[in-house]
């Protein structure tokens, strides 16, 4: 992974010193809360229901064991011994004290980590495929580009006070595992007919009050022009994005109101007027960045596939885990493993300090020290020999990390909701827990199914993109839940449609059950819920959902 050089270390140390002074000035009364709030947000610090919340950046979801152990240490020392992996590949700690944050950032800096721009009206974490570098369907590793963008976007003086937050995602494989189309700016890496690398650029995606999918504004921008083109996109947004209404200030509103074609024309005009040569990405620079992301020196001993098959045959629980949590790797004999943080009955995406330490140890022993964070709020070990899978599973299972439910109905994406978040209008975690408990017995029968739950319209739980999406709202002081149907992330991204009137909290699990039953009755061979929904329409599901009992 990318390693800091002297420049990066110096920068991050200066950032910590700057922030330490900002906190000092706040606590001394020199800065008002209105003046301080954007500054602390630019270092990922929110004020939530119970305490401050720190959102630590995990650039494009890549960690190593050293960083993960430091996160475990931080949550023990400064927090309550657990962290929450987010839908943008970051980590949140929910019990933070403002006065500790300069020291926390200094500790993070010691392992090349930070919380820069994980909030605020600037560039957020540029996210990517958790299988980056090891996926068989990849054109090339997207992470060098994510790192190039990260550096360019860090404390960018022109774009630190945008109308609103700005989220970028990069994908370089046939299958979009990064939900590119829901981002403000999306990049699909392509090769043109001459074999040159470039990007399809999409703009204007976003969830929340006005969910919209990003639209292609440029079919191909050569790699050398990537940053100058992104700069043009941002400059148009910075100048023309709405600033009069908080709920209309994302770039998706600008793209929607201008139309994608007009927005593309504005960007093109701005880009052509700029000094593209001065801003071009030198090939040497790209090559250097790519050299930071090479594959490890895999062990060339033959993989004992027979031993693995014997273990599968002899252990149904292990067999199930292999079926759902283990994915193909581009190097024969190896696998990518998803560690589920979705144990039924627990808080999805949460990971205790002890579990973090265990995953760090397992990464060191079995995955060349590397760990990834998936936006579905799970962890990934990207370099596991197939004959190590059984031992890995046993050790994970002993620590509550052995759930074999990746992409299944109990692998629910869920925001922290009103148990933690000051923006929330309803609780989300208890709903996810009860649904998982209710549906667990049918999980194998159902197959792949994505339920996504948000505790407010800001949609951090991506409910718009759930096969079944659930949005918690407040109705006269009562928590009620709106159901959406037919959403999807990935290549065939779709925004779910609202099913009808909202459902009471205690009726949600049974409602989900009826919807799933309707799907099981209607589905044809190989159809996931979105395909069935598109084929048969909303009516049968609405009927099942609201059927009198």
């Amino acid at each position: 992974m990318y390693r800091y050089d002297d420049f990066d270390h110096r920068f991050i140390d200066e950032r910590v010193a700057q922030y330490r002074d900002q906190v000092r000035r706040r606590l001394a009364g020199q800065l008002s809360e209105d003046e301080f709030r954007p500054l602390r947000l630019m270092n990922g610090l929110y004020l939530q229901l119970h305490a401050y919340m720190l959102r630590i950046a995990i650039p494009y979801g890549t960690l190593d064991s050293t960083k993960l152990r430091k996160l475990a240490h931080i949550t023990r020392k400064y927090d309550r011994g657990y962290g929450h992996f987010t839908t943008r590949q970051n980590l949140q700690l929910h019990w933070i004290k403002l006065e500790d944050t300069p020291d926390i950032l200094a500790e993070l800096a010691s392992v090349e980590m930070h919380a820069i721009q994980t909030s605020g009206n600037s560039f957020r974490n540029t996210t990517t495929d958790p299988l980056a570098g090891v996926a068989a369907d990849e054109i090339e590793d997207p992470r060098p580009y994510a790192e190039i963008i990260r550096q360019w976007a860090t404390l960018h003086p022109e774009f630190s006070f945008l109308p609103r937050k700005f989220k970028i995602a990069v994908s370089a494989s046939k299958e979009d595992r990064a939900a590119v189309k829901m981002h403000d700016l999306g990049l699909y890496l392509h090769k043109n007919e001459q074999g040159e690398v470039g990007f399809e650029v999409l703009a204007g995606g976003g969830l929340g009050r006005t969910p919209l999918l990003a639209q292609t504004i440029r079919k191909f921008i050569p790699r050398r022009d990537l940053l100058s083109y992104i700069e043009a996109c941002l400059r148009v947004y910075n100048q023309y994005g709405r600033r009069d209404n908080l709920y209309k200030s994302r770039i998706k509103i600008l793209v929607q109101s201008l139309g994608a074609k007009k927005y593309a024309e504005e960007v093109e005009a701005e880009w052509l007027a700029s000094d593209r040569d001065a801003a071009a990405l030198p090939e040497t620079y790209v090559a250097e960045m790519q050299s930071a992301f090479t594959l490890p020196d895999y062990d060339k001993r033959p993989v004992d596939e027979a031993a693995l098959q014997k273990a599968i045959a002899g252990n149904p629980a292990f067999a199930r885990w292999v079926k759902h949590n283990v994915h193909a790797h581009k190097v024969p004999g190896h696998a990518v493993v998803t560690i589920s943080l979705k144990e039924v009955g627990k808080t999805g995406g949460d990971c205790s300090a002890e579990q973090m330490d265990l995953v760090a140890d397992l990464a060191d022993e079995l995955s060349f020290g590397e760990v990834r964070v998936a936006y579905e709020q799970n962890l990934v070990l990207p370099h596991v020999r197939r004959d190590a899978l059984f031992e890995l599973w046993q050790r994970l299972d002993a620590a509550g990390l052995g759930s074999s439910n990746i992409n299944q109905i109990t692998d629910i994406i869920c925001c922290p909701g009103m148990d933690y978040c000051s923006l929330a209008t309803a609780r989300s975690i208890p709903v996810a827990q009860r649904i998982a408990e209710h549906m667990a017995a049918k999980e194998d029968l159902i197959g792949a199914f994505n339920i996504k739950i948000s505790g407010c319209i800001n949609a951090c739980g991506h409910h718009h993109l759930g096969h079944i999406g659930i949005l918690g709202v407040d109705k006269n002081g009562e928590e009620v839940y709106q159901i959406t149907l037919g959403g999807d992330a990935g290549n065939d991204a779709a925004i779910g449609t609202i099913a009808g009137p909202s459902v009471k909290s205690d009726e949600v699990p049974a409602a989900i059950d009826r919807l799933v039953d309707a799907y099981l009755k209607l589905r044809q061979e190989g159809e996931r819920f979105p395909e069935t929904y598109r084929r048969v329409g909303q009516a049968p599901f609405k009927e099942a959902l609201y059927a009198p009992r």
Partner: protein
Amino acid sequence: MLLAEDGTLGVDDWHHLADEEPIPASGAITVSFARWQTDEAILHARADKLGLRLPNTIAPQEIAGDVSRFALIVLNFPKFTDGRAYSQARLLRTRFAYKGELRAAGEVLRDQLLFMRRCGFNSFVVGERAIKENWAKAFSEFDVFYQQPTDGQGPWVMRQRLSPRNP
């Protein structure tokens, strides 16, 4: 009171002409963009320094051909969270090669001063707090930047990493 990019404090000796005021025969004055559009000929005929107050809703393109007329351009931050003037500043300095004084006015606060300077501002309208809280220190909080202008006013290039991998 003005803060300069080198951290020194000084007095603003420009007269900022209100739209309803008649144009004085002499003296350094700034005018609004609207005034510039209606009275350009009169203003052009004056010998003394001229400045322009450009709202953050006007694209710098609108004054592209005129920048050399101005010794001062004042850009506005109506709220410190409104970042449009950062883009205006960068465009004026780079694309339109503006060489005069570029001043930040409006809600100019200590923690945005360094961003402003790096976008090309070289003076800042500030109040008493700038003295009491020693705002000049803000300019030296960082000496490394990921986006590096070549000579302070030229085009921007990506930082070239100086590392053993790429000497």
